[in-house]
């Protein structure tokens, strides 16, 4: 328990003592992750095979149809 507390304190103090440029970087990281995982992933990047086909067999058949068409 003591060890976990030490680790948590280590991170908390580290983030608290971040210099200005470090805070700017964290802001950029968080905005970037939001754009990537919330905006892009949800609205623009669905997994096509998972979304459009129910079983692996259907997915395989769809891919075979595509890759064997000259």
């Amino acid at each position, binding site marked *: 328990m003591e060890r976990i507390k030490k680790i948590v304190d280590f991170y908390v103090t580290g983030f608290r003592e971040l210099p200005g440029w470090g805070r700017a970087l964290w802001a950029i990281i968080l905005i970037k992750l939001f754009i990537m995982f919330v905006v892009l992933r949800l609205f*623009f990047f669905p997994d096509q095979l998972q979304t459009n086909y129910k079983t692996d067999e259907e997915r395989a058949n769809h891919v075979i149809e595509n890759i*064997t068409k000259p």
Partner: protein
Amino acid sequence: MLENIDFTLVNWSRGQFALTAMFHWIFVPLTLGLSYIMAYMETMYVKTGDPEWKRITKFWMKLFGINFAIGVATGIILEFEFGTNWSNYSWFVGDIFGAPLAIEGIMAFFLESTFIAVMFFGWDKVSKRFHLTATWLTAIGASLSAIWILVANAWMQNPVGTFFNPETARNEMINFWDVFLSETAVNKFVHTITSGFVLASIFVIGVSSWFLIKKRELLLAKRSIVIASVFGLISSFVLIGTGDSSAKEIVKTQPMKLAAMEALYEGQTNAPLVAFGILSGKENHKNVDADSQADFLFKIEIPSMLSWLAYGDTDNFVAGIKDLIMGNEEQGILSYEEKIKRGYEAQQALLALKKVQKNNPESPEAEALKAKFRDPDFIENNVKYFGYGNFYDPDPEVLKKNAFKMVPPISMTFYAFHIMVILGGLFLLLFAVFLYLVMKDQLHNKKWLLWAGVWTIPLAYIASQAGWIVAEVGRQPWVIQDLMPTMKAVTHIDVGSVMTTFILFSVTFIGLFIAEIRIMIKQIKVGPQKKEDINNV
């Protein structure tokens, strides 16, 4: 029947992937190389106890942090694109790609994020040796996490150690070590990470040169230049060595790429290497036919050098673009027409299997077709050329024309290769000169050279991106060599949505890039911490 393919969609999807991968690759090489440079600097601090080494380490660590923060997770977008834009490809590669990427994700998360936190937060909280260990582990962890994506990429260039399962239409790994230790994977990994080491060395030399020009932080600049020059020199020699072994491997696995790199249309013994050349605008290198010839406005050749580079023997025959397309019986080269027919046969067998399985999955006919895909002769003579079947046409004239379409963009591959090699030579010279002059304590007087050091930074990025273009554009039309052409890897989605995300990415990436440059320049101008602040820590 290639006219049925929506090349607008294929090209936008390729453009989107290229944009994402190239943007991601702006950050990776500096992270890979700078991590080792600062780990060495910190080792000097721990060994000598000299606080100046601590200042130096902390300064470069700050720039490392900026680069890492802006670049981190930009590679994840590539994984989104696999599922949306390249679903046929994602399915076809199966676990070959999934497993390495999963290992990479886990390793990167645990190794890098844990030890990077110790590196930045732990200066006055953990012992010197523990901190140094964390810095080294960050560097090693970054290189290790790069292994997996590069192994996956190497498999696409040279698919070995796998079996194509006709029932699932997926490639399955049968020998991990064949995949992991293939000649292509080893060359690719060492060549790629050492290119990152060279880029980082140039970055350190460039920034240090700026300090010398401004007559600031002279000790930091000189010490940094010594370390970066030595690191850059060693890395350059490894880079040249793996470049040489890559050429020897590419001539076996991707001979068309090698021919395109040299714009070699007609194969020859004692093949010369074009050291420098400008292709003529008259020759349309996009539409190759049986009469096409390499047409140079100007070139300087090194006699027999290409044969020597490819085979270690000046007398050997190096196949040209036309030999590879039309075949060369004397040299035992199969024509593309023949490969297309063989690949088509494999595809027809797969279709036949699916058809009989629809009625009775366990019928003797189905079993016989399944067995075909396990037959070593059928694998060697037909399945190996599976992707060629997509260029099949019943009309022999159209089929012949299709064969000539299976050539990578020659001008782009040729220039990217030569830019990479010429700049690589220039960097080697730069490291040697900087090391010599800084050791003689004469560097700070050579302002023009210092400015050259600063302006070499963008050249290092150009060389790095050019290397990526050689590897990826030079292997077209394949996304997986001989097994899957790029046009078949693409998901049939609305081209408008691909264009929208392309524009979204462009805007986001430009924003991030501007942020990186601004924060980086500002922090370079601020410089390292004051000496008294360091001594207090």
